């Protein structure tokens, strides 16, 4: 990771503190790293000009070096946002994925056909830059409901975002900050355990502070 990228990644993680993670007891050990702790994953987060105010990072990307077995669980709200409809359709036809692009700022919900078109364009742009098929790219959005995403700003940021991809903890932390909206802390955790005598890692990041009563399936 070149020097200025490191600076950018480190900047991203300084915006908000990390949440205390209350892990249940079990045969696992908490390790640093979030989504990049498991082998094969990279992440990045940067400010792409999507947020209404401030320059907190608002664009995150998580990639896998190989075809990752993919699962998705989505809101049962019948007014489902465009990225939810898109991901459900993609995971209906594909068992694997290679990347997840997440934007904050606009939720791209209640945005009709134009909002769905925006998702397709963003997924295709990421796929092209990563030399993947569009259906290998999944999309998550969060932010103000009813507004389409600031697509031009997002598309313009993608080359820099991809350059920032890193398998380090800093990459995971930057991504965890970039997906936040009204959160006061960023949420990221990773654990290491043994499965069948082999060490494996499970990591993750999440966001959420308001409009929280998940009912997903």
């Amino acid at each position, binding site marked *: 990771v070149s020097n200025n990228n490191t600076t950018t990644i480190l900047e991203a993680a300084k915006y908000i503190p990390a949440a205390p993670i209350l892990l249940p007891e079990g045969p696992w050990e908490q390790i640093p790293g979030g989504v990049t702790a498991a082998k094969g994953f990279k992440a990045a987060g940067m400010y792409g000009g999507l947020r209404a105010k401030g320059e907190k990072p608002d664009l995150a990307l998580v990639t896998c070096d190989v075809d990752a077995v993919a699962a998705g669980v989505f809101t049962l709200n019948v007014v489902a946002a465009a990225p939810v409809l898109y991901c459900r359709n993609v995971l209906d036809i594909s068992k694997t994925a290679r990347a*997840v692009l997440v934007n904050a700022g606009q939720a791209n919900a209640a945005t009709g056909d134009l909002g769905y078109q925006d998702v397709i364009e963003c997924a295709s742009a990421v796929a092209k830059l990563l030399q993947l098929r569009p259906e290998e790219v999944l999309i998550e959005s969060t932010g103000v409901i009813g507004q389409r995403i600031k697509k031009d700003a997002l598309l313009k940021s993608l080359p820099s975002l991809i350059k920032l991809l890193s398998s380090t903890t800093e990459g995971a932390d930057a991504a965890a900050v970039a997906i936040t909206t009204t959160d006061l802390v960023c949420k990221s955790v990773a654990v290491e355990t043994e499965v069948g005598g082999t060490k494996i890692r499970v990591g993750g990041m999440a966001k959420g502070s308001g409009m929280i009563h998940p009912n997903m399936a």
Partner: protein
Amino acid sequence: TMLGVVTTDALVTSDVWRKMVKTAVNRSFNQITVDGDSSTNDTVIALASGISGSTAISSLDSFEATQLQACLDAVMQGLAKSIAWDGEGATCLIEVSVTGANNEADAAKVARSVAASSLVKAAVYGRDPNWGRIACGAGYAGVPFSQNELRIALGDILLMDGGQPLPFDRNAASDYLKGAGETHGTVEIHISIGNGQGRGQAWGCDLSYDYVKINAEYTT
């Protein structure tokens, strides 16, 4: 809105992974609540690279699947609790544990009903050990149980047993709530609704004036 991205390097087949993820979400993200609003965007994406070289998991019944499920549950619960902990305007995390139900799903339903109650959330913010509101939240969960078997404790302070309210040290109970609020800690509500084996948890936060202020300003 809540969003999640979970990654692992375990080797697991697609259909097993999808079932595992759904189970873990039901034990974590689907058990949190801040304001009762189910978002248009709630999503969890979970990716398994398989690069660890672990034993391939192709059946939910295998020991390896049990190990991976437990670890996946833990990671998702850790993230889900941090969302409830960070609920808008929250001063503390509320953890509701229910035992004695007929099954896990019933226990989870009662737990989330109590955690989602605005009156329970406001009582916690007012540092009021209001056992009646907790009992009420359990009662309208849609899970049948005999109220004579209802037992409620706040931390280790027993408020109700056998459906009967008990004399308890109100100041100590209120101080327990105050202490959690001052440290952004966790208020534990323990509820038993019978003698069944079903147990479940839900997480929420207290309801403060700031929740209204934040959402009155976060406009379209």
